[in-house]
């Protein structure tokens, strides 16, 4: 039941954002979203390491999504772009967003850098998916979470470093 609802919600959201989603590649089931990160906030030790590892893996996944989306867009391959957007949207809803829900990791000195990178990468991918509404919300959330820390160095644009304030401006210009 829950699965069907999630699926319906995702379908509606993506069809709305993409305009014309190809039905060919719609996943048939999505499972359930993971628990919110706040519920399972690691406090330290191996759990903290584990959280860092999960975040790092998801950051790399986002980089791979960004590359795949860029390629399909450069080929002018809308079918692939739509299928990827659908898949990535599901990935974010089911796995990434619950991981980013928690407030604590944006305040934790050992994780805030990675947390900011992950959110910026998510925003970059959303822009590539032309989901400007979600991208805008993500930018607002980053600005709110990291208020007054515009000088913090982040990994954006992908593959280089810049102050958070500059990274946010670069992304806002693209939204």
């Amino acid at each position, binding site marked *: 039941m829950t699965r069907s609802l999630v699926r319906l919600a995702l379908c509606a959201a993506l069809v709305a954002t993409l305009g014309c989603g190809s039905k060919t590649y719609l996943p048939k089931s999505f499972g359930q979203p993971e628990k919110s990160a706040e519920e399972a906030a690691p406090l330290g030790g191996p759990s903290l390491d584990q959280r860092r590892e999960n975040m790092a893996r998801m950051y790399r996944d986002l980089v791979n999504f960004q590359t795949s989306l860029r390629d399909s867009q450069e080929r002018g391959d809308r*079918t692939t772009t739509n299928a990827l957007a659908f898949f990535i949207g599901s990935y974010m809803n089911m*796995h990434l967003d619950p991981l980013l829900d928690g407030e604590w990791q944006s305040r934790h000195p050992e994780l805030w850098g990675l947390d900011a990178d992950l959110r910026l990468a998510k925003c970059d991918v959303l822009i590539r998916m032309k989901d400007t509404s979600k991208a805008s919300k993500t930018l607002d959330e980053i600005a709110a979470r990291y208020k007054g820390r515009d000088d913090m160095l982040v990994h954006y644009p992908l593959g280089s470093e810049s102050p958070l304030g500059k990274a946010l401006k670069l992304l806002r210009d693209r939204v």
Partner: protein
Amino acid sequence: MKRITRIAVGLVFALALQSGAARAANESQVWSGYLDYAYVYSSADAKSLSERLKGYGNEAGISLDRYVAEYFNTLAPAEAEGNDAENQTRRKAIAYLLLYLQSGNADQLEVSAKTIRELAHRLDRHENSYWYHYILAHRALERGNAGDFVSEVFDLWLTVVVPIEATYATLDTLSLSDSPNSGFVAALPYVYENIARLVVLRSQEKGVDRELDPLGAIVRMLYDNRVGAYPDVIPAAASSRGYLERIVERLNGSESDEGSLTFTLALLEASKRHEEARGMLAKQGLSAETQRALRTATGAYEVAFKRASTVGGQCAVYTRVLREIGELYAARQRLGVDAEIEMPFSIEGAIGVYATLRGSFTGDEWKKQGFENSTREQYVDSMQRLWEEIQETSLNVGDYYVSRSVKEPGRADEMARNGARVYGRYLSFFHQYATEDGKESLPDSAYFAAFEAAKGVGSALLSYAQKPTPAEVRLGTERYRAALMLFPFDRELWPAITAALARHGQQSEYAALARPIAEHVVHSRAIQAWIDQKEPEADRINRVRRALADSEVVLYMGFAESTKIPDLEHELSTLSSKRSDATREVDRLTRKRDELRKTAKADVPASADDGEAASGNQDLADVAQQLADAQAQVTRLDQQISARTRALPLYKETLATDGLAEELRLRRDHPVHTLLRRMYHELRSAAEAKEKQ
């Protein structure tokens, strides 16, 4: 042995000891254990899987197909309840999948799919979800439905891979990933491996060669610290990591048709088929089986070509398929077998692709040809590699026709003209694109290949054609001259020009034709710089350059034969002895003249006989004339001796570059190719500047 297998085998062994040999009427604990761990071995190829299943059947006392028929289809539905029913349903679906993978019988896959669908309400359990989507993905491939296949793989990733990744990492950190209680989480390394094989290997085996591009993201993620990251679970040799690496390198490179997985897999598949055909060609020659393999490879290249959506992609296909065409012609020539293989590809087609790429040379236009994520160097490199294949194939095909003209004297003219046309097409292509502004897009070896093609036209028309027309003789002679301009270090070609001129009675034109070539070598700034900087082969080239500065050496080059240098040296010693004889004759005649003069002076007062006096004067005049002739002879001999003494050693120096052509032919990266490039552009620039004046 892999840890998981070890656990499974241990567990199964213990159960087997407890229950004794299984009978079809009961659940076999041995088979239940092996089916639960089927993710360990289900990706094996059909033959290995068959052997494994046979071994497990021996262990269980009943083969899998009998067990399926006698247990799953009869007793199991009645026996099992609750969780056990779910397990038995999953095992039955897995068993049918294994039978399908072993035999290829699609009916068994249908039963497997039907069975696993019974668990559609229990996909919250990762193990069920894995097999559900894995089996349906196989069914999509069997049906050739790329869209459904992509959906199933995406579902597999979202509902199985990502959820168990976090847990696996935690268990692995605590060294619990191989604990029997870790459940399906422990299967993660196999899940990665199985998905990788499904996407990059199985899809191609099942002929699903289109619409796989969305899975490029999955392939990139599998390569990113997943497949091959657990060598203690799956040894590197058993992992598909290496193949995945090749695919991702291609996807990231300039030969992926802008990161298209469909294209990349199709091209790799075609290259694999090409390798197989090449292996057969080496072992069996152009047998019927080899010809079939070549046709398969060509068909696979055709598929890749159709999948290419950019000119860069087409370039990647042509770069490889031209090699196949060249190999086929070389084999025909070598083996004397006239195998006809339909080729939807041609040298003209490749030239067309090159022309399109070259048409985007300026500004950022080139990026639009499939190089958006490539550097300009990669774009130029792609063009150069395509060029190399065009030149090699052209030369192979030209050589083939020329050799046919020898084997079939009745068709000598036809074959020689075919050869000349193929060489000529490369020459036209070369002259069109070897311009100052676009020379970067040519490989260094293109210039020597142009020499070979020009020489090929000359030889085809002048040596291989039996009845060339006067126009063809003139064309052949001109091509020989052009060849020497491109590569003046081929000594065989100088006398070939003389022989060609002789065919239309114009040997006298040799000097006028050859002198500019020699002057080009002597005055070339490119050669001078090469020698000054002591570049490779500078000494050999310098010796030839020194020799060509002597106009008599140029004549030797055209009219003498290097094999007759000893004869020329012998002639020199003959000249010396002739000179000695002539000198002696001069001395003798000088003495005689002097005597006659004395006699004439003494006789004048005593004799009044006019007749006698007149006779004495005549003798003196005759001797004086003979002396003058003898002295002229000595002078001529001196000149000849002097010229030959100077020119002959220089002519011998031209032997220094003997073999250089062969070295350049064998090594397309030979440093002297760079010198030929510089020499050509130096000459072309000078000619163009002269035209403008």
